C-alpha cells in the first residue's frame, strides 16, 4: 500500500532522498594528527592544520580511507580505486580555511544499495548514489554571550562520510527505515557509531511531492536533522507544506530549510545568497587518492558479517522467525551476546530469554547490552541448569533476578539460597498428601467434577515446598492421588 497524502486536489506522492553525514570512527582526524574524541575542552583537539593557519597542509589518514571503503563495501557499492579531493569554498566562522576539503567530481565510492524492511513485512531496495570523504567543520555557539558567537574547532577536520541516496524513498517510514539500516550497517562495521544525539550522524532530507505518474517536481532540502524520529516528522511536515503551496497555485522554490522540532514545521534558513557557488576545484595540496586493489580486497575479506546476512543465518540455522532474528541482530553487541548464550544450546530458548527476561532487566536497570549486569556466559549457564533439571522454569526466573541484582553466576546463587529444584518423589508425595489431607472438602469437590481446583492443589504444594518442587512431578503425583 503506497503512502499518499490527501490534498484538496487529490492524492500526492512524496519523493525523498537523504544525504547522511556520518563521522568516521578513527583516533585522529582526516588530514591532521589531532584527536577526534567527543566532549573535550574547547580547542584542545586542534592542530595548526585544523585551525587553518598560514602555510599548513593536509596529509590524509589511511584508516579514514579504510573506513570509507569498508562502509562502501557494506553498502554493496563500487569502490573507485582512483578518486580526488576538491575544495568547496565558502566563508563561515567555523570553517577556518575558508574551504572544506571534500570530494565533488570523483568520490571514493560509487553506486550501491541497501534493503529496508517495512512494518507490513515488505522489503524495498534503496539506491545509494555515492559516498565520499570530507572534513567536518568546527562548532559555533551562539548562546554563550549577548553579542558574540564562540568558536570551538575541536570538530574541525574530523573525517566525515557523506552518503547520498537515490531519491527512492516514498514515505516517512521508508526514510526512517533507511536511516536505521544505514546506522545499523555502520555500527556493525565499526565505521561510525551512529549517535545522532551526539551529532556523529546527521541527515539532510530532500523532499518533493508529485501527483502519481508525474516526473519530479522541485525539491527542498531540510538540513541537519539529528534524529530518526525528527527526520520522519520533517518529511511529513515539509511534504504538507509543499502540497499546500502547489494546491494554492503557488510554486515551490528550491531552498534550504530547517526543521523546527518544537513546532513541527520547516522554515526557511536565513537567505544564503551565493551559498551554492562553491567554486569547486581540485585541491592542489593533494595528489589523487589511488587505492591498491589488493588492499581493498583485504578490507573486504576482513569485514564482519553484515546485519542482513546475520539475520538470514539466524533464520536458517536457528529456525528463528524473521521478527526474532531481526530483533537479535539489530545491534552487533546483541547478536554477539545471543550467540554466546545460544552456543550448544536450544537457540529458541536462548532467543526467548534474551529478548524477554534480559531485555526487560536492561530496561529496568537502564543499561545497555554492553554493560549488562548478567554476562552472556552466565545466562547460558542458567539455561544449562534448566536443561539438567536443577531448576524449573519458575525457579530459573528467580535465580535470574538474583543474577541481575548481584551479577553472580547462577550456580553460586543456587547453592547459597538452596534453590535447587526438588525432584525427590518421596518429598513430593509427602507434601501432596499433606495438602490433600488439609483440604479434604476441596478434594471432594474436585472428585465431583470441579476440575479447576487442580490448579489450587498445585499451588498449595508449591507453596508448601517453597516453590522448589519440580512441577511435572507435582502434577504426576497429584493426578495419581486424585483419581
Amino acid at each position, binding site marked *: 500500500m503506497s503512502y499518499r497524502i490527501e490534498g484538496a486536489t487529490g492524492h500526492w506522492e512524496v519523493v525523498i532522498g537523504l544525504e547522511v553525514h556520518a563521522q568516521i570512527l578513527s583516533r585522529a582526524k582526516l588530514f591532521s594528527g589531532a584527536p577526534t574524541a567527543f566532549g573535550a575542552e574547547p580547542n584542545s583537539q586542534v592542530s*595548526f592544520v585544523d585551525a587553518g593557519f598560514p*602555510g599548513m597542509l593536509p596529509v590524509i589518514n589511511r584508516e579514514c580511507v579504510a573506513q570509507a571503503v569498508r562502509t562502501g563495501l557494506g553498502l554493496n557499492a563500487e569502490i573507485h580505486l582512483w578518486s580526488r579531493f576538491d575544495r568547496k569554498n565558502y566563508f563561515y566562522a567555523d570553517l577556518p580555511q575558508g574551504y572544506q576539503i571534500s570530494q565533488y567530481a570523483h568520490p571514493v565510492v560509487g553506486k550501491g544499495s541497501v534493503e529496508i524492511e517495512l512494518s507490513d513485512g515488505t522489503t524495498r531496495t534503496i539506491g545509494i548514489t555515492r559516498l565520499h570523504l570530507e572534513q567536518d567543520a568546527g562548532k559555533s555557539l551562539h548562546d554563550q554571550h549577548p553579542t558574540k558567537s564562540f568558536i570551538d574547532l575541536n570538530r574541525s577536520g574530523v573525517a566525515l562520510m557523506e552518503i547520498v541516496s537515490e531519491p527512492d524513498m516514498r514515505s516517512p517510514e521508508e526514510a526512517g527505515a533507511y536511516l536505521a539500516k544505514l546506522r545499523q550497517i555502520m555500527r556493525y562495521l565499526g565505521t561510525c557509531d551512529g549517535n545522532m544525539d551526539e551529532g556523529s550522524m546527521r541527515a539532510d532530507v530532500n523532499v518533493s511531492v508529485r501527483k502519481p505518474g508525474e516526473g519530479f517536481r522541485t525539491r527542498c532540502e531540510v538540513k541537519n536533522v539529528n534524529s530518526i524520529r525528527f527526520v520522519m516528522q520533517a518529511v511529513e511536515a515539509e511534504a504538507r507544506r509543499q502540497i499546500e503551496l502547489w494546491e494554492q497555485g503557488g510554486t515551490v522554490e528550491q531552498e534550504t530549510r530547517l526543521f523546527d522540532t518544537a513546532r513541527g514545521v520547516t522554515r526557511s534558513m536565513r537567505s544564503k545568497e551565493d551559498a*551554492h557557488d562553491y567554486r569547486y576545484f581540485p585541491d592542489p595540496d593533494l595528489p589523487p587518492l589511488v587505492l591498491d586493489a589488493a588492499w581493498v580486497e583485504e578490507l573486504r575479506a576482513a569485514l564482519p558479517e553484515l546485519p542482513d546476512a546475520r539475520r538470514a543465518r539466524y533464520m536458517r540455522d536457528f529456525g528463528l522467525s524473521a521478527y526474532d532474528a531481526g530483533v537479535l541482530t539489530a545491534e552487533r553487541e546483541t547478536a554477539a551476546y545471543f550467540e554466546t548464550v545460544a552456543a550448544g544450546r536450544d537457540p529458541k530458548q536462548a532467543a526467548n530469554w534474551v529478548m524477554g527476561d534480559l531485555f526487560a532487566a536492561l530496561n529496568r536497570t537502564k543499561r545497555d547490552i554492553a554493560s549488562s549486569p548478567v554476562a552472556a556466559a552466565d545466562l547460558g549457564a542458567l539455561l544449562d541448569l534448566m536443561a539438567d533439571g536443577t531448576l524449573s522454569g519458575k525457579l530459573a526466573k528467580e535465580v535470574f533476578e538474583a543474577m541481575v541484582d548481584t551479577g553472580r553466576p547462577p550456580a553460586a546463587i543456587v547453592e547459597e539460597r538452596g534453590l535447587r529444584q526438588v525432584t525427590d518423589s518421596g518429598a513430593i508425595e509427602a507434601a501432596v498428601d499433606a495438602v490433600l489431607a488439609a483440604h479434604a472438602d476441596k478434594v471432594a469437590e474436585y472428585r465431583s467434577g470441579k476440575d479447576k481446583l487442580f490448579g489450587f492443589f498445585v499451588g498449595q504444594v508449591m507453596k508448601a515446598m517453597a516453590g522448589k518442587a519440580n512441577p511435572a512431578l507435582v502434577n504426576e503425583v497429584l493426578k495419581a492421588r486424585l483419581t
Partner: protein
Amino acid sequence: MRPTELTIAEGLAALERRELSAAEWAAACLDAVERLNPRLNAFITVTAEQAMAAARASDARRARGEAGPLDGVPLAIKDLFCTEGVPTTAASRILDGFVPPYESTVTAQLKRDGAVFVGKANLDEFAMGSSNLTSAYGGVENPWKRGDAPGVRLVPGGSSGGSAAAVAARLVPGATGTDTGGSIRQPAAFCGIAGIKPTYGRCSRYGIVAFASSLDQAGPFARTVEDCAILLRSMSGHDPKDSTSADRPVPDFRAAVARGVKGLRIGVPREYRAEGMPAEIEALWQQGLAWLRDGGAEIVDVSLPHTRHALPTYYVVAPAEASSNLARYDGVRFGRRVLRQGDDLRAMYEATRAEGFGREVQRRILIGTYVLSAGYYDAYYLKAQKVRALIARDFAEAWTKVDALLTPTAPSAAFAEGEKQDDPVAMYLNDIFTVTANLAGLPGLSVPAGLDAQGLPLGLQVIGRPFDEEGVLAVGGAIERAAGFRAAPEVRA
C-alpha cells in the same frame, strides 16, 4: 677581507680555519643591516639578538667539533616563511601582529644545519608581484644604479625583492626566497646575483604562506652558483607533512657546480626570442651560448610551441589557487581584524579583507574567484590546466633532444619605481621567461652574466629536467666561470 665580502663557501672555510667566528660574521652583517637597511628597506624585521645568540651557539658547536654544514652562515629569510616566535607578515597588513607558533620545514632545516637568521626579508605582498612595490611595508631599493641616472631608485624585482637586495648589497651572503612565477629568478637577475627555483616538490611547502599551491617552491639566493647549491642542499628533502613533497634523496648539489658541460646538449627555445627584446639581452644570450659551446656543449634549436600561452595560463591558475588559499585571512583566528560597532560577521570579513589586503592581492583574489565561479570553471581553470599540460609536454619532448635550456631570465634590466606600475598586465610581462618552469614544475636557475649599457646586471636562465638540479647547476656554474661577473652594486656594505 671584510666578513661581508665573503661568499658562503669562503665564510665556511674561514670559520673552519678559525680565521673568523660566527659571532664576528653575524655582527658584521647586522652592522651592515643597521647602516643600509633604513635606505634599502630590504628587511621588515631584524632579529639582531636572536642572530647573535644563534651565532654564539654556532661557535660553541664548532668548538666542540659538532659544526653542521651551514653552521654560522648568516641568512635573510623571506617574510613568507613562518618562523616560530618571530613576526611573519607576508608583507601584508592582514597579518599584523601574527607571530607563528610553528616553524616552516625549510627554515627548520636551515636552523638544524646551523644557519644564523639575521631577519625577515621584504617581499611583494603575499608573493604577488615582480617589483616588491606591492609590499605593505614599502618598496625595496635595488642597490644597483643606472650609470646615466644614479639618483633614480630602481626596483630589485619580485616577489623576493628584499632577499635579492640584501644579498646583492652584501648585507648577508645568502637568503631564502620563493618562486611561483619567477619570484627568485627575476629578482636574482635584476640584482646581479644567483638564484634557483628547484623542481616542484624538491623543497617542502609546509609553513610557507601559500600563494599558488601547484606553483610555489622555496629556493636560495646567493652571490655564486656554488653558494646556491650549498643552501639548496640544506633546504631540500622529503617532508611527510607536505603531501606534494617528492620522496627523493637529496644529491650533493655542490659537487655538480664544477662539473662542466662537455658533451651536454643545450637547447635554445626559439619562442623565447620575444618581439621587441632589447638587443643587449639577445647579445648576452648569444654570448652565453658561445661560452657553453666553448665548454664542449652542443647547442640545439628547439621549439616549445605553447610558450606564448604560458603567461595567461599562469594568470588563471595562480589567482584561482590564491583566491582559495587566502580565504583563511578573515580576522577570526590571527592577524588583523577590522570590526566596527554594529558590524556582523560578514561585514567583519569584508572590512578586514578590504583593509588588510593591498590592491594587487585584491585584484588577484577577484580574478581567481571569478574564474572558479559557477559557469566559468570549464572555460578558465580547466582550460588553463589543459594548456598547462601542453606546456609541460613541450618540455618533455624537448628533453628527448637536449639536457637543459638556456634563455634570458627577464625581458629587461631592473626598471625604475614608477615605470609600469599602473598597468597590471604590463607588470605581468616581467614573468614572460620564468613562468614556464613553474607551470611545468621544472628547476630553473638565474646566473648573472653581464651588464647592460647602463651598468645594470643581466641574468641568463638555465631550465632543466625534473629533479636534475645538478645538471642545471653544472650549466650555471659553467656560465658563471665564463662570465667572470665581478661587478658589485653602488650601494653595499
